[in-house]
């Protein structure tokens, strides 16, 4: 079934990133076998693409325009989001003794699993420039559940096929806990502090 899905994406001339999003187990396996050594330039390219998506998506949603200065400024400001991703990934990649690829290659493969969040960041601004009005905030926020769940499934496949972990579910839970714990810390800061968050939930 997975092979059939991969063939379908290939027939549609999709990238390995898309194959990875829709058939993660088979694609992670294939990519890990294809090359065990990482390349700094490849990882840098992945990070650059993620920053470009972040900077452009936020720029268009927030201002309705793009410029080099605006996109670079937003990408720089929000680059900590990638640092959070990298920190959470490091926590599961570095201790994984059974993995058959280098740590650099593992990071490269993990940042290749960006399609769900890239779509979430790019589709609302595309709607904005096409329709001339923002997608409703509630709908955009609710739609974030899709990449949240999707990325957790990608991490489970990554843990199995790249990290070769026999306890992929536990690795996934650890990764997601660290990732969302750090993210919640920022949200709490942005919303006025943990004391306010606790007050809002009645504690």
């Amino acid at each position: 079934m997975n092979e059939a899905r991969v063939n379908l994406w290939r027939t549609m001339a999709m990238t390995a990133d898309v194959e990875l999003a829709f058939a993660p187990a088979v694609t992670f396996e294939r990519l890990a076998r294809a090359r065990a050594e990482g390349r700094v330039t490849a990882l840098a390219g992945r990070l650059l693409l993620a920053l470009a998506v972040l900077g452009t998506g936020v720029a268009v949603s927030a201002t309705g325009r793009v410029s080099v200065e605006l996109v670079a400024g937003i990408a720089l400001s929000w680059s900590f989001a990638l640092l959070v991703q990298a920190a959470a990934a490091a926590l599961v990649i570095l201790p994984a003794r059974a993995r058959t690829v280098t740590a650099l290659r593992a990071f490269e493969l993990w940042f290749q699993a960006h399609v769900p969040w890239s779509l979430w960041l790019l589709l609302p601004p595309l709607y904005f420039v096409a329709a001339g009005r923002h997608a409703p905030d509630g709908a955009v926020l609710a739609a974030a559940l899709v990449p949240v769940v999707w990325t957790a499934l990608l991490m489970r496949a990554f843990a199995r096929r790249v990290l070769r972990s026999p306890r992929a579910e536990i690795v996934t839970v650890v990764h997601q806990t660290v990732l969302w714990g750090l993210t919640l810390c920022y949200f709490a800061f942005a919303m006025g502090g943990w004391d306010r968050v606790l007050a809002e939930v009645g504690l």
Partner: protein
Amino acid sequence: MTRGHWAAAGLVAAGLVAGSLSPRPPLREPIRAGGFWILAVDFHVHGFPGDGALAPWLLRDEAARAGLDAFALTNHNRVSTARAARRLFAGTPGPIVIVGQEITARGFHIAAAGLEERVDWTQGAAAAIRAVHAQGGVTIAAHPGRDYWQGWDDASVALLDGFERAHPSMTQPERAADYAAFAARAAALHPNIAAIGSSDFHTGASPGVCRTWVLARERSAAGVVAAVREGRTAAMDMAGTLYGNADVVRVISEAHLAAPTRRPLAAWSRTSSAAAVAGLLLLVLL
């Protein structure tokens, strides 16, 4: 990279370059009337770091493009970003940055402007207002819809310097009705209370999309804050409708400043943005 990738990357680059080359509106030159500066101000703007999308230098650029003379940076229960912005931009041309805080509590939100220190949000509205006044700042009831009425007793409303009469959420009729009801109540308790228009900018609706016209004796943060304290303001909503002090409304109307503030996406911005976003989608998918 395949040819397709290079083409997609080229589309992204073309979009970014085209967007960078788009004509930039000149800084608005404020006008004077009857000894006052007529200034366009947004008293409720969120920035990064915080839950606003834009770092202060980008926010100030957007404020300038929106024709604002000043804006208050009002992150939730923090003043650090606003203070850093004020220091960064001191003495440089462009909109004045006013240090503010959105005092964010369960029963009320207050956009406070003209602060030096963070105000404790755990106290009641009246105590928070007094704490702002002790610093020389002014307090504005933020988006005073019925969700927040529980925190506003008559004593605290009477202490307010202003309230948001125009806010982007007014496009919802029930919100518009709530703000009109709060305006009637506030005017009964404090006849000289300032009507304020704010964008509450986070990631959508541009800064200044709703704005406040103030008649300031001096073109400075202190001058703007004093104008609010003395009630010399008119709030403008997204349709260009003015609310507030009748004399100020007349002055603004006569100065022909009451143009709609909702800026349609310019064709150039739309095309360059579409190219950049489409190019990135192609890079991701193909």
